[in-house]
């Protein structure tokens, strides 16, 4: 009796997860299916033409390259900038710790639209940085700070840094200080103790944060449009144009499938290298 009841309970508890994953799988399967149709809706002949068309369009290949480059650069910068802040939040014992924690969380409470407008005010031709540099006499005319790959990188790092900091901090806080102390007692210098013990133990947090940041970066749409102003085309923008402007559902589905595959390949490589690093 008891086992039957517990099995029923497990089935009930699993029901929401099964339902949600079924909807997600259905969406992905539909996209995958549409990407192999000549024209959807309309000509439903199965073909590889959409993939060949994608690979023969320099514009789309460049968008794919820029999407991946953006993902890698933003993730790397978030790790480098986020790790020390996570360290500060966990290990540094000051009265500012709670304030810093709140400030790290603050951007998450403000819409991405508002934060991107903020970057336009700072980096624009009549923005804060240019006004400051001109009044200091460093430059005579405005610098073109907008419309570039690196402007988009700045905007995205600002949006995604909190995710990285929080996931590294959550793992760092679980590392026992006694372990590091033991290493020091055995003669390790602070740098050695960090490289051999703390860093490998915190790699899980870096991996989790990197996956969140990478996945959110390659799916980003608003920041490249607003800060790149047409100079930074990522696949999310191409998919939007294909699906809703030129209304080519098959082409849009193909781009979406290729974006997903690229993301999975990058994450697999990344996770494998992290695993190798932590095992050693």
């Amino acid at each position, binding site marked *: 009796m008891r086992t039957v009841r517990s099995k029923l309970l497990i089935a009930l508890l699993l029901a929401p997860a099964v339902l949600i994953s079924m909807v997600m799988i259905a969406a992905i399967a539909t996209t995958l299916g549409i990407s192999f149709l000549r024209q959807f809706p309309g000509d439903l002949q199965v073909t590889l033409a959409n993939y060949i068309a994608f690979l023969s369009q320099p514009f789309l290949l460049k968008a794919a390259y820029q999407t991946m480059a953006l993902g890698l650069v933003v993730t790397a910068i978030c790790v480098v*900038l986020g790790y*020390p*802040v996570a*360290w*500060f939040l966990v290990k*540094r014992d*000051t009265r500012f710790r709670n304030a*810093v924690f709140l*400030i*790290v969380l*603050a*951007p998450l409470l*403000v819409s991405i639209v*508002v*934060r*991107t*407008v*903020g*970057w*336009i*005010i*700072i980096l*624009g031709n*009549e*923005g*804060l940085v240019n*006004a400051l540099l001109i009044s200091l006499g460093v430059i005579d005319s405005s610098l073109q700070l907008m419309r570039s790959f690196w402007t988009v990188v700045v905007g995205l790092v*600002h949006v995604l*840094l*909190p995710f990285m900091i929080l996931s590294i901090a959550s793992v760092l806080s679980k590392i026992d200080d006694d372990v590091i102390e033991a290493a020091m007692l055995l003669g390790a210098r*602070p740098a050695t103790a960090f490289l051999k013990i703390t860093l490998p133990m915190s790699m899980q947090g870096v991996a989790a944060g990197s996956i969140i940041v990478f996945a959110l970066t390659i799916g980003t749409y608003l920041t490249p449009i607003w800060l790149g102003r047409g100079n930074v085309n990522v696949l999310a923008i191409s998919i939007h144009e294909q699906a809703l402007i030129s209304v080519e559902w098959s082409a849009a589905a193909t781009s979406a499938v290729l974006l997903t595959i690229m993301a999975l390949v990058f994450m697999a490589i990344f996770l494998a290298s992290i695993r190798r690093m932590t095992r050693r």
Partner: protein
Amino acid sequence: MRSRARPRYLDAFVAAIVVFLLAPIVVVLPSAFSSDVALSFPPQGFSTRWFENLSPGGNFCRLPG
């Protein structure tokens, strides 16, 4: 602790990140009171016309369509 100097670098770094995280949010606030149409910093003039636009009967609520 031997490494007294290191927290100072860490604190300075964290202070820089705090500025980075807050700057775009903070600069939006004075710009809301700008009298200029274009976004610029420092804001040109002072006005509350953008807030008046938002009120019922303002331009924002009288869009065609």
